[in-house]
């Protein structure tokens, strides 16, 4: 009993010390974090400015002519824009593609990543190296061959040009493989002895454990698709199919760029990203608890 009390006392002073250190570290990290928000703050500020003020130096954080007109113009509220940019439609297209690809890519990557990490099939390593190799050719030179292929398949001018390649991701497969590598072999072996097959092991044991990584992957895949510009630009040749990054080119004038409109549109485009990020963070905590219960 006595030793326990002593230990508790000892723990308490340590706890206070720890709290103090924690507060200090939080402040330091928060300062680093703050520098990372600056572009976002600038973006918000610029989205309420008139064109003439956007590029002013030194930066004027509070707009002199504060105006919500940029948002009105981008979303074509009250027909205030010089023309209808069809931003709402682009927004819908982007959401559709990003979410289809998110679910598709997480599924295919989790499956393939598991196989590459935990099933010792023939030719696994060679195949995986081949996978890695495909990441090493810059997309600038595969763009045209891809384009030619899609036009032969008659897919140019549809969203399938972004969805079919989008539900597969080598980086995602790689990420999931590395995560599964980290999981102890015993977890699988014991299930195997209990008579579970590979699919059951994957679905019942591996997927729940992999949730934090799947959440990261989901966020990243969402962002990739949300920001995919080059391919969307070349493959989608009709404004009805445009995604947000392509529709941003609307705001590039002949000799100048309306950064205030670009920023208003980009700020609007951040909302789903926040939602996905915060949803993903929940899995971080859940994954932790799942691990704790098992551990």
């Amino acid at each position, binding site marked *: 009993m006595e030793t326990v009390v002593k230990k508790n006392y000892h723990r308490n002073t340590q706890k206070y010390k720890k709290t103090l250190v924690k507060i200090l570290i939080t402040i330091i*990290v928060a300062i680093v974090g703050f520098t990372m928000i600056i572009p976002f703050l600038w973006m918000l500020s610029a989205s309420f400015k008139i064109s003439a003020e956007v590029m002013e130096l030194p930066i004027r954080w509070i707009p002199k002519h504060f105006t919500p007109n940029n948002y009105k113009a981008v979303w074509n509220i009250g027909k205030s824009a010089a023309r209808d940019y069809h931003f709402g439609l682009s927004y819908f297209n982007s959401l559709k593609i990003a979410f289809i690809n998110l679910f598709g890519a997480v599924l295919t990557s989790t499956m393939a990543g598991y196989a590459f990490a935990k*099933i010792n099939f023939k030719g*696994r390593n060679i195949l995986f190296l081949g996978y890695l190799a495909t990441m090493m050719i810059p997309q600038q030179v595969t763009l045209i061959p891809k384009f030619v292929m899609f036009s032969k398949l008659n897919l140019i001018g549809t969203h399938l040009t972004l969805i079919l390649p989008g539900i597969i991701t080598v980086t995602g497969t790689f990420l999931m493989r590395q995560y599964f590598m980290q999981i102890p072999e015993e977890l699988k072996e014991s299930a195997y002895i209990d008579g579970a097959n590979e699919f059951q092991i994957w679905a019942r044991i591996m997927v729940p454990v992999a949730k934090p990584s799947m959440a990261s992957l989901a966020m990243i895949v969402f962002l990739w698709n949300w920001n995919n510009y080059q391919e969307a630009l070349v493959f989608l040749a009709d404004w009805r199919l445009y995604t947000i990054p392509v529709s941003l080119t609307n705001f590039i004038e002949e000799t100048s760029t309306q950064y205030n409109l670009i920023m208003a549109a980009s700020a609007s485009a951040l909302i789903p990203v926040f939602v996905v990020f915060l949803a993903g963070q929940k899995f971080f905590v859940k994954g932790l608890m799942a691990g704790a219960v098992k551990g």
Partner: protein
Amino acid sequence: MKLSRKAKRNMAGYTFILPNLIGVILFTFIPIVYSLIISFTNWDFTKGFGNWNWVGFKNFVDIWSDKWFVDSLKNTIVFAVVVVVFTLIIALVLAVVIDRFCYAKTPIRLALFMPYISNVVAVAIVWVMMYSSWGPFTQMVKKLGVDNPPQWLGDYKWSLPSVIIMTIWGGIGYAVMIYTSAIQGLPRDVYEAAEVDGAGEIRKFFALTVPFLSPTTFFLVVTTLISSFQVFAPIQLMTRGGPGSSSSVLVYYIYQSAFSFYKMGYASAMSWILFILLFIVTMIQWKQQKKWVSY
């Protein structure tokens, strides 16, 4: 019908990767093979697909006497090495510190992630403004007593380092997130055992965290290296490779060759040099990982 365990394993393995494999072959592998074929031609893509002349290894020979290629290659290597080393070290430390010693984890992680999700144009503009003579960098250097502060993005010596600093700053959030999700999967009991043995934080970090996270580190090294070797947007937005070719990088030059100079064959040849370079580096890491990655 009875299959040996080995055959079953092979079948399960291939079934798991099948959807992924089909996608990779169709949408990545085939275009890459095309790019290899094109690298032996003088193709100008406006002439139509297949309308080219074979030039043998001419492109692969010519590039070595091309100042732009050689400069860009050097810059790319410097860029990639510096970015990978600094991004990953800072991110690993931050991820662990945030996970163990911080309050308000989610807002801080979100803040770190902001550069990654903010519109790349906004990020670039803010950094251009930061580097201008009105920005904090010049003011700081002036306060240190330097009469003739560097012109940063407009400076032959400083333009590449300036972009490198921005890239590291922008890439930390992504690496922190990947590390964080991996940290959630760490076996807690091992840490508790170490604590009982009286291991300090620093000892735990080097003896447990670093080895446990090595599969994730391997993933981040490979993917960050590849994406740094293929850096494009910040260069295009901030310096356009200038002044002179002081901040030109390979993919930027590949892009110009293919689409401004209409030399797709030449651009493809450069991409394949980039590929070989990346492949060798990745193979070295692949061999090395067996030593330093513990699964």
